[in-house]
């Protein structure tokens, strides 16, 4: 249970800071003495945090479902023809810079939350897809055949043998994807999505370092919280599955 302590502490710190930022006014007054307003007030930090998190969670959920489905399809006998292309796309796609993908979504979909969600889903899909393929491909065919020999249907083998064995690698892919998407969603405030990037951008435009600091600290904390959450998840996974996994 000790593994869950860091994410809990960080999450508490994140929520506390988001709610209690105005209490730090003297500090920010000291950082930025020449400005009247030193606390970002256009939206509450809690609202921005919630919106930011929502974008990341939705894109991670949709991306995971799509990527795992795609990875499973490309490794079945019926979809095997597509495997070389899918794995090529997964690796070439990751060469594209996230900012550029975000920028390309705007001419097609316009400003606001829709283009950023599409960009996050499409871009976040790639690391999960690559890891799903790697995880499923690395399973010893003998294990699959043993499942079939025990009388399992191919679907049962997939659900009860292959996906659990590949799960750890897929989880690592989701972690990479979410880390990238938290950063990309922050930049998304330049295209009209309301995220924790807003105070940073507003501060950069108005030359108000206090705004920049508030946004940057919260974005950094959010990233650390989520990352430590995945760390805890991975440890728990290893703890539960490693004795059987060795067999």
């Amino acid at each position: 249970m000790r593994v869950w302590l860091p994410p809990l502490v960080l999450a508490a710190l994140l929520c506390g800071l988001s709610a209690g930022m105005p209490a730090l006014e003297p500090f920010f007054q000291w950082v930025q003495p020449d400005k009247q307003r030193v606390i970002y007030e256009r939206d509450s930090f809690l609202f921005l945090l919630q919106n930011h998190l929502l974008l990341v969670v939705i894109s991670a959920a949709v991306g995971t479902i799509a990527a795992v489905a795609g990875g499973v399809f490309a490794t079945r006998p019926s979809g095997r023809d597509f495997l070389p292309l899918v794995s090529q796309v997964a690796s070439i796609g990751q060469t594209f810079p996230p900012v550029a993908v975000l920028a390309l979504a705007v001419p097609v979909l316009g400003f606001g939350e829709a283009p950023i969600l599409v960009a996050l889903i499409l871009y976040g899909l790639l690391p999960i897809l690559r890891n799903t393929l790697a995880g499923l491909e690395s399973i010893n065919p003998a294990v699959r055949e043993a499942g079939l020999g025990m009388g399992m249907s191919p679907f049962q083998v997939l659900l009860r043998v292959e996906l659990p064995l590949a799960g750890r690698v897929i989880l690592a892919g989701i972690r990479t994807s979410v880390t990238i998407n938290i950063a990309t969603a922050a930049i998304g405030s330049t295209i009209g999505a309301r995220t924790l990037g807003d105070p940073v951008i507003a501060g950069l435009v108005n030359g108000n370092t206090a705004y920049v600091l508030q946004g940057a600290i919260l974005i950094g904390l959010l990233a650390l919280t989520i990352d430590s959450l995945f760390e805890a998840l991975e440890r728990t996974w290893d703890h539960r599955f490693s004795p059987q996994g060795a067999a």
Partner: protein
Amino acid sequence: MPVSRTLQRRIAPNRVIPVLAGLALLVVWSLDFGTIQPNRIVPGTGHGLLSATGWFGAGAVTLVLAASMLLSVLPLGVRYVPLLGLVGLSLAMLPLLLEVFAARHLPEGAPYARSAIGAGFWCLLFLLSLVLIEILGRLRSGRGLQILLLVSIGGSWLLLLRGDGLESLSLVREFNARPDQFEQALWTHLALAFGAVAISACVAFILALKMIRSPGWQRPILGAVSFLQTIPSLALFGLLIAPLSALAAAFPFLETLGIRGIGWAPAMLALVAYSLLPMLRNTFVALTEVPDNLVDAGRGMGMNERQLFFQLKLPLALPVIIEGVRITTIQAIGLTAVAALIGAGGFGAFIFQGLGQAAMDLVLLGALPTIALALMADAVFTMLAASLRPTPATA
């Protein structure tokens, strides 16, 4: 029998290309192929494939896609070579369709009118590229052919885009309005990205040596650099502003050097920080995974430690280190675009300026070269790593 197996593989119909080509037919006939804008900001009127390029253009596109579908399912002995020719040539000639579109629809005597690329064209380009990747994969083509193909398609695009026929294309207009700025952005972008990679390569090398000599340092060093990697780019850029401006205020001579809260200094610092993890991880793994028996063999030949390092370990580790440089460079090129937000310049400046003015072609003028740079860096370093890989010795 390897020969008959090869034959069978070639004769077996391809199911991937018909799907991609069918999808391309669907989107190219249903989405807008291009738009005509009366000026830079006003949204234009869209034109479908038939209206945009006439019966001749629409027929050519349909014919190429149908032919590639047929070529991939008919029982043929040679399938992929003619497909490669067909698809490669179509990709190279694609801008001609835009030229036809501009010639047919651009109003006479309207100097500000411009033609813009529509979703249909982008989708066609994307799907044709996928078909090309699939063909190259099936042909098991060597790097040489791939590079040759990429260079000739890219060259044909550049030639057509620089020609008179596409002068009205909005992307070309945006470029022609600021050729000097574009060149400056290119150099700034390259200087920032490659400068950061070079610095981080040196730092990572020293850190890796330190980690090898004293294993106690491994956990703290790796922990610190992966912590840095977790912080989102916008946050790290933002967090560096306050300390650097304080530094510049305290030591005015630093400010004359350009070290301020915004500009190249925080950008470079953040880029180096991000570059450390992939670089350090690969350098460390590469240097520690040189097989022991090879080191013993070298020692047995009378090499001293210095010779062992420079003549044996380093050459063997080089391909993996270059792989680290590849990942780092691609990442740095993307992050440099973000650094434009704190006034570091580069192609990101066009992206964010375009987003601010709702001028989508300016956004493209920043985004497309950034992607092109990343793809080129990927190709160059992949080739470099492959050429440095020593021929495998028989174990």
